[in-house]
């Protein structure tokens, strides 16, 4: 679910769309340096910077958080499925 606008950095926005597609909630909160937050709803969260030092690295960290979420269904778990 998306609440609020798009992230101005395209790499970060792509990662947020990925999170959204994996049923994470992306919320624009806009306070200080924080653009918003992405949460899985069952215990994971990642704070999103407005101006990360390196948007590509920040985007990768968001992807990693989504992929490593221990609350996702078993068939989505990392690596050991047969979808590789």
């Amino acid at each position, binding site marked *: 679910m998306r609440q609020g606008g798009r992230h101005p950095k395209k790499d970060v926005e792509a990662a947020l769309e990925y999170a959204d597609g994996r049923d994470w909630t992306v919320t624009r909160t806009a306070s200080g*340096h924080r653009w918003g937050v992405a949460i899985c709803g069952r*215990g994971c969260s990642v704070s999103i*910077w407005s101006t990360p030092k390196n948007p590509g690295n920040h985007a990768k960290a968001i992807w990693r958080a989504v992929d490593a979420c221990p609350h996702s269904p078993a068939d989505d778990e*990392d*690596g050991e499925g047969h979808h590789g």
Partner: protein
Amino acid sequence: MVRAIMAEHSFTLILSGDVDAHLDELFEAGCDDGSFGAVDGVAYADFDREAPTLTEAIGSALAAVETVPGLRVLRIEPDDLVTMSDIAERLGRTRESVRLLVAGERGPGDFPPPLSHLRTRNRLWRWSEVAAWAGVTDGIAQAHAQTIAALNAALELRAMAVHLAPDARTLVASLERSA
């Protein structure tokens, strides 16, 4: 003056304290190269930090985080712990191909055993062991793994020191001296 050669170092700091309440301070302290999150109430920061050495990268990130009152670094997690898909990515193979290597159905066999989570679908391996097995290891990676192991021991000692009985403290000190 010789300019140091900078490289980007990736590592994760596991944190205690209320990170969300201090994000602006962390940003101002230079942690805009960190991504802050939490899993089940445990806070972490994924850093991709430019520095001449891994030790300097970790040391400066650790110091920056701990300038914020109430925040402490508990542990450093390297990407030395890897999943099957991490291994696939790092070896440039498909996940199915790595699955066959792990199972011994392809390649020379004797794939290193997973470090933990054996009875799950998220087994974890040490990259340093897998890399050595695959013949792609390098001395720098091994040194990094050792540095992080030693730093984690120091962080654990720091966390535990206040709880130590005097005789245990004496024993710890003697171990350090015998290094």
